[in-house]
């Protein structure tokens, strides 16, 4: 049977998400040069993970194949982005 997660967890996650949103917005006022985007994406990834793990119940899955499906999705996205960029990044080499 499915697990029922208490409302407290959801509220905590929500509070964390709101805090992270404020943080990332605040950090954008600071010029970190190249690292601005890195920090912004790290925070986004953290937020995304919270959503996926708690709101989407991935942390509590009783079917592990679903985990495989999710990992596959992100893996293929990485293939698309990285393999395409190998072309553009290495063009200047020759």
């Amino acid at each position, binding site marked *: 049977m499915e697990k029922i997660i208490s409302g407290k967890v959801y509220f905590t996650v929500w509070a964390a998400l709101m805090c992270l949103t404020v943080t990332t917005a605040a950090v954008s006022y600071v010029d970190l040069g190249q690292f601005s985007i890195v920090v912004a994406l790290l925070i986004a990834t953290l937020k995304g993970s919270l959503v996926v793990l708690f709101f989407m119940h991935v942390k509590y899955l009783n079917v592990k*194949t679903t985990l495989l*499906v999710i990992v*596959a999705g992100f893996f*293929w996205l990485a293939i698309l982005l990285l*393999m*395409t960029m*190998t*072309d553009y990044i290495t*063009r200047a080499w020759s």
Partner: protein
Amino acid sequence: MASASTITAEREHYLNADYGFRSWLLTTDHKRIALLYLISITFFFFIGGFFALLIRLELLTPQGDLVQADTYNKLFSMHGQVMIFFFLIPAVPAVLGNFLVPMMIGAKDLAFPRINLLSWYLFIVGGGVMLYTMLTGGVDTGWTFYVPLSTAYLGTHVVLAAVSIFIAGFSSILTGLNFIVTIHRMRAPGMTWGRMPLFLWSNYATAIIQVLGTPVLAITLALVGLERMFHLGVFNPQLGGDPLLFQHLFWFYSHPAVYIMILPGMGVVSEIIPCFSRKRVFGYEFVALASIGIAVLGFLVWAHHMFVAGISLYSAMVFSFFSYLVAVPSAIKVFNWTATMYKGKIYYSTPMLYAMGFIGLFTMGGMTGLFLASLGVDVHVTDTYFVVAHFHYIMVGGMVMAYLAGMHFWWPKISGRMYPEAWGKLAAMIIFIGFNLTFFPQFILGWTGMPRRYHAYTPEFQVLNVLSTAGSTVLAVGYLLPMVYFLWSLRYGKEAGDNPWGAAGLEWKTASPPPTYNFEETPVVTWEAYNYDELPEEVPVVG
């Protein structure tokens, strides 16, 4: 085992369970949906084939004399789009897969029967838009929609064609989604992954590609449509974009799409060869994992379509390397099929003839693929008839042969009737000969330098083109024959019985045609796939 009696006169099965248009158009029975698909894709196959014949007729002479250049460009564009998106991609998964996947795993239906029906409707809507596109003047982008030609230069129905393929793409996604969930969640007790027939493994691998690749094509075509309609700069260099990005996105789907077309065919052959060799498939695990390997590695090779397009040398090397890597699992499969025949007891039935033809033609297609994966050779032969011949060997010599093999093999299950065996063999021979006559000369044409998509060509290429055109007429006869005798057999064919081939596999353990819910009671699997050593030695029908 729940097997129905052979007296079929009164027995209720999926075909006579209900009558009338409503009962077909609103059905959620995977077997009926498979038949709906069968009719639709056959229709599109003959449309695409008609275009192909016109192309071949035009190329009989070097001058562009039969049709105008614009018409010729439309012909090959629509031939490609129809054949790829409305025949090859749905052919085995949506017809044979739909019919067989639930039966092979011992389920009553696919996981989402209504989504399955929706998928057919999307196919029909997409197909309808494609027909409308043809009737109102067609499209001349090639099947590849290369920008900026498609978004800024052509005056034809580019957006309509893109919409049609966009919709058909979702049909394909839904089929894939259904197969993945069905194979994961709906297997009968005892049907472990290691006992699954290889047809299921290859359809599973296909479904992975459909689900992960098709959405990228969808968004790419959407961006093409937006760029064309609203002049939004995405790909067009005049608006600041990069046309190679389009090619990357397009081939990210369209190369794996080649595996959508061939993997299910490999699955069909993996069923037929053990059956008519009366022995287990050689190296089951390797053939099964090779399918998954192809599905995964197939996503890492797309830029081998772009070796001369202006990509980075280093990137080209990476993609060339992966292209060779993906050839390994295909090679493994060919060797295993061949080894399966060793020390077998081989019956020359029609499906087996097609399957042996498949091995030969697929091998040639695969071997010429090795030429194209090699950076240096690709530079010379890409965009020539060498490529045309190569992919027709894979798709027509491979996939269509496998599809026909499967149609003959499971026709008794689908219809409950036998097709005429002698005619079947004759058609198989005609197709094999016609095919080679049509496409082998094209290898030489390409190697000697004839570019593809040429309406008129220089005179030295004529002899080979004439040979090819002659072959295409033979091929056309070969393709018409099965359609005629399949229809004939519906009325006059011998009753097939539950298992005319004495084949392993759950689908043969139920009646022909099967009852609506496939099995009287859910089967429990206690045996390995292809347990021919435990089955009768003779093939009842052929022997």
